[in-house]
């Protein structure tokens, strides 16, 4: 199988600046075109283990990130995103090209892939039990995810939980984990083996760095998982660890609030979410220490919380 890592740097650059690099991420193919060197660097590093598909076939999403032309090429250069010729977003400073690629890849899925109920949540699996971590930004969801990936958990997704509308299974979309601000140093300290992209400062979300997804998770991207738990995490300085059951009805409403396309799906979304809630134990989770959290998640994976 051809992967990004098996392409030479020249070949990768040629594809990205030519007909496009067709990257497979979970169930989707993305045709990416770009002439921005820092973006090419990050793709080479973060996507080394991902399959590359031949160009010229059917592709799910067509993305293009180009450097500004004219005077802007030399002064405060920007990166412009186009979805197959349309430009839904304002340009960003050139240094943010790679985070912009990640955001726009997410946007393609959340705005189009209505074959899934899409929850704004991380989802990880161990011993056949998948745990969904829905959470608003700032709750420490990505930090927790990044830490768990060093403890034998499989990454299904850091950002989007895909619940298949037909059978309710969780479809993996393993992609790099987005770490913000202080989490970057926390994960560097907690997981010295972690591969991180170069931090990008002054984005709308502060400083961003991406953690490479584990090769094992990428290799198992075709293997769906069964939902076992829904855990709403919350990091709080100095807090004692606490895992409290959440009534199903409240869990339903809170997950609905964290969906990208619950409204669009109408009755099918309601049914899919109902089935997910029925199949899962729901908890709120407060923690301050990552090692304690690791131990507790190990018990959840064993089915004994």
């Amino acid at each position, binding site marked *: 199988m051809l992967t990004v890592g098996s392409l030479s740097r020249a070949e990768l650059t040629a594809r990205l600046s030519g007909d496009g690099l067709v990257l497979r991420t979970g169930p989707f193919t993305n045709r990416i075109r770009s002439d921005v060197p820092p973006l090419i660097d990050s793709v080479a590093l973060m996507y080394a283990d991902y399959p590359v598909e031949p160009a010229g076939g059917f*592709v*799910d999403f067509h993305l293009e990130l180009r450097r500004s032309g004219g005077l802007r090429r030399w002064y405060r250069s920007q990166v412009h995103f186009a979805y197959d010729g349309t430009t839904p977003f304002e340009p960003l400073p050139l240094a943010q090209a790679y985070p912009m690629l990640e955001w726009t890849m997410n946007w393609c899925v959340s705005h189009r892939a209505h074959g899934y109920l899409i929850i704004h949540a991380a989802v990880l699996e161990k011993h056949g039990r998948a745990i969904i971590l829905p959470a608003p930004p700032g709750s420490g969801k990505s930090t927790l995810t990044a830490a768990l990936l060093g403890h034998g958990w499989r990454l299904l997704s850091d950002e989007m939980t895909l619940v298949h509308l037909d059978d309710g299974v969780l479809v993996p979309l393993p992609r790099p984990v987005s770490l913000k601000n202080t989490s970057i140093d926390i994960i560097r300290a907690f997981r010295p083996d972690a591969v991180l992209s170069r931090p990008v400062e002054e984005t709308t979300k502060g400083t961003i760095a991406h953690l490479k997804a584990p090769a094992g998770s990428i290799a198992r991207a075709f293997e769906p998982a069964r939902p076992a738990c829904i855990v709403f995490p919350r990091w709080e300085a100095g807090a004692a660890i606490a895992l409290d059951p959440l009534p199903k009805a409240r869990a339903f409403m809170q997950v609905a609030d964290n969906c990208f396309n619950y409204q669009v799906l109408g009755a099918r979304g309601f049914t899919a979410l109902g089935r997910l809630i029925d199949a899962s134990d729901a908890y709120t989770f407060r923690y301050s220490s990552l090692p304690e959290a690791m131990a507790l998640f190990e018990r959840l994976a064993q089915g004994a919380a």
Partner: protein
Amino acid sequence: MMPLLIRVLRDPGIVQGLDDAGWDLLLRQADAANLDACLLVLLEDAGLLDTVPAAPRAHLEWTRVGAAGHAQAARYEVRQIGRALDGLGLPLILLKGAAYAMAGLDAGRGRLFSDIDILVPKGRLPEVEAALMMHGWITTHHDAYDQRYYREWMHELPPMQHARRANSIDVHHAILPETAPVRPDPVKLRASARPIAGEPHLATLSPADMVLHSAVHLFFDGEFDKGLRDLVDLHRLLTQFGKEPGFWEALPARARELELGRPLFYALRYCPRLLGTVVPPAVQAAVAPEGPNAALLWLMDRLFGRALLPLHASCADAFSDAAHFALYVRGNWLRMPPLLLARHLFHKAFLSGKNDTQTA
């Protein structure tokens, strides 16, 4: 050769010969033209959906879900507008996409629309606006010049948006601006409006007027980003209404009565040319005198021949941008007399906020 999407719109059966690259191109053109849900309906009606390969089929199914959600939201919104205007003693006359959808016309199947357009008498605008405001719709253009642009010169209020649901409504009192050289009489349009069966307070324009409004909206406007979508509307309206007795016979005379002979001429020229619409020869002969002179027609064929294609890189040639620009200038020219237009463009270029995205 015509773009793939247009060939499929004319003859859906050709999808059976498509390879993966062909499906990729077809869905991208349909997406760019805002016709993806329409393509789904077309393939389904032709019994071809099960022949579609898995990956493009998944996209079509995603489109189905998105379109169904959209249709449900639109129906809900129309009911809310009906409730807001209940008590004013006005029939709720829907225009364009909302009318096609609520009346269950072929043109409404798989046709998405972002705004709901309604037609009310000019003298009742203050009451209508007040009633909508009481029910949560607020005006979107706060710039004093934009407010004046709409209220003095245009044929509609500044678009109103619902504070919570963010859906937009355009309240029209006519189908062309006050400042345009032709003025189809709104009284005649309202007088011919027809109630929608099973929807007591809702109405549409008459079939002929729906066609004429669709034609003037497409051929007198300056923006062609949805040009092909609007042409498909016309094709489907003409094809469905063409089966009703008396429709074709009355259409040219009604166009003359409403001063809309020219847009009807263009509709009956480009629908058959691009989409294969069947128009009786007698009707073509009746609208022939409404067309432009030969030199202008030669030019318009070249401009519309480009602007009516999907707005996608695969359909563009060296003159596409120039054609879109020329039609943009023409569209403004057809809305305002020259001095007013010059003043308007000057204001938009130099005086309006540079980052004001709500350009009128």
